[in-house]
């Protein structure tokens, strides 16, 4: 590197001696620094080995053709077999035309036993060690609806005499704050009212988790760990297939069941029969009768989220 020719305009720039030796020394340190950087970042390379180009380049779910989806699902099923040792069947369940799903819970009947929490945990292939579930039950003192006075950490015999129990899960809001805030449209509301997440599109920024007023969203802080024999093999792309680390997930009203006409797992597991689920657009449905005959209310109504989840006392 030669010193710059000194024109009158360049006089403000300093002249440097011993350019060649200094250049070599600087170059050596720069190379050392680069090598140190690569070494420091090496754990990423090991992690990158487990991903494929297909997975990296996969488009948003709504942009995939039928053939694309077939390929993606085949890849996911193979990956599940390889990582977890279980044969699973991942469907692509689309909304049934003419349905809008609504859920209701009878708070006079719920006794906080938590079987719904456990059923969700098993049905949706959650990580075992954390007992993850989409449902949380709040033990509330009778006489108030203020969650500030409630507690989720109760155990023991239920129901306690002076308490009632409030299970909370995703409300599948009609104006979901989580959908508005997602920067990449990885979450959206489908025609039957269910708010879904494309786990292969989510970038894991957790803005939706901050925006949800109902603590409905969960983040995969690590890869879920489930023994092969406990994996529920009836899966769907947008609901209970085993999610990768670093993405957000949420209750999908068990769309892998409900879009096939079945009841959600939490409802089937409830021993007291406090839960009611159905298609609000069907005039003869159970949920319609609840909304027409019971004094229902919703959580945090003042936020304007318009939940599709109702509570009532009987």
């Amino acid at each position, binding site marked *: 590197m030669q010193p710059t020719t000194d024109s009158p305009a360049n006089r403000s720039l300093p002249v440097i001696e011993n350019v060649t030796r200094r250049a070599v020394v600087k170059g050596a340190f720069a190379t050392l620094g680069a090598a140190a950087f690569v070494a420091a970042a090496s754990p990423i390379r090991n992690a990158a080995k487990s991903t494929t180009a297909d997975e990296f380049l996969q488009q948003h779910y709504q942009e995939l053709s039928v053939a694309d989806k077939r390929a993606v699902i085949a890849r996911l099923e193979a990956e599940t077999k390889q990582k977890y040792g279980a044969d699973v069947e991942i469907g692509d369940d689309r909304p049934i035309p003419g349905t809008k799903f609504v859920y209701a819970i009878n708070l006079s009947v719920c*006794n906080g036993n938590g079987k719904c929490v456990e059923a969700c945990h098993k049905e949706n292939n959650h990580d075992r060690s954390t*007992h993850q579930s989409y449902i949380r039950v709040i033990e509330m003192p009778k006489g108030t609806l203020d969650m500030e006075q409630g507690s989720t950490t109760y155990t023991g*015999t239920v129901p306690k005499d002076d308490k009632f129990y409030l299970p909370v899960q995703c409300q599948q809001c009609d104006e979901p704050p989580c959908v508005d805030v997602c920067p990449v449209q990885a979450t959206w509301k489908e025609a039957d009212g269910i708010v879904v997440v494309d786990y292969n599109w989510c970038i894991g920024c957790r803005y939706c988790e901050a925006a949800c007023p109902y603590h409905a969203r969960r983040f995969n802080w690590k890869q879920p760990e489930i023994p092969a024999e406990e994996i529920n093999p009836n899966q769907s792309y947008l609901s209970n297939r085993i999610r990768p680390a670093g993405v957000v997930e949420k209750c999908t009203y068990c769309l892998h069941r409900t879009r096939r006409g079945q*009841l959600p797992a939490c409802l089937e597991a409830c021993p007291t029969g406090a839960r009611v689920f159905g298609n609000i657009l069907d005039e003869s449905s159970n949920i319609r009768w609840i909304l027409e005959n019971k004094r229902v209310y919703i959580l945090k109504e003042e936020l304007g989220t318009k939940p599709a989840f109702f509570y009532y006392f009987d």
Partner: protein
Amino acid sequence: MRKSSSYFLHGLAVAVCVTALGAGWQWMDDVESSSPTSDTTFLTSAESAVGGLNVPSQAAPPAMRFEVLVRRPEGPPKIELITNDPLGRTTSVACSTCHSIRQPNRDNRSPEMLDEFHQGMQFDHGRLACYACHNPEDSDSLHGADGTVIAFSDVMILCSQCHSSQAIAFEHGAHGGMNGFWDLTRGPQTKNNCIDCHDPHAPRYPKMIVGFKPRDRFLERDKPHATHN
């Protein structure tokens, strides 16, 4: 006008143009790509057979309607005896085994007053007398308030005569839970009858113990001994 003001206006104009361009482009993008109904037509029922699983997105014709099956008791309760009969066969006792050869004693109003059998039976069902539900004429059946004989397998009718609100709720799927399908064009639904959950002599739903709790980091659970009263 000072030059700096004109540069300021320059800058503002640049900003407005860029924002308008960007917003317009994104609006066009949104109009094309987002549409709440587009995803339901994305897959036809023929195409939605993915991964070997055929998931029809159209409902079956209404004529194909499955049942709501309500479980029923088989009949009057029978008690298996510990001992076998002299021929080595298992024996069981029906209500009529004893009650067909005795006169009903309508003065007995609680289990404590019974001295020959049914000791230790828990009774906590208001101030009902035994023969308010049990048929004194035929111990293998029940009877309603107007005397109508009700078979044991129809016990729900008996419960409903006083607990009509729960009965109506039950009819509408709002009491007692269910298993199976919400969409009866695709599969049946099974429901319990009253006495599957409620012991008719002590019908209050039993307390339970919380079995499964989330294990959160940094959130301590209550200690199990903390029982309130």
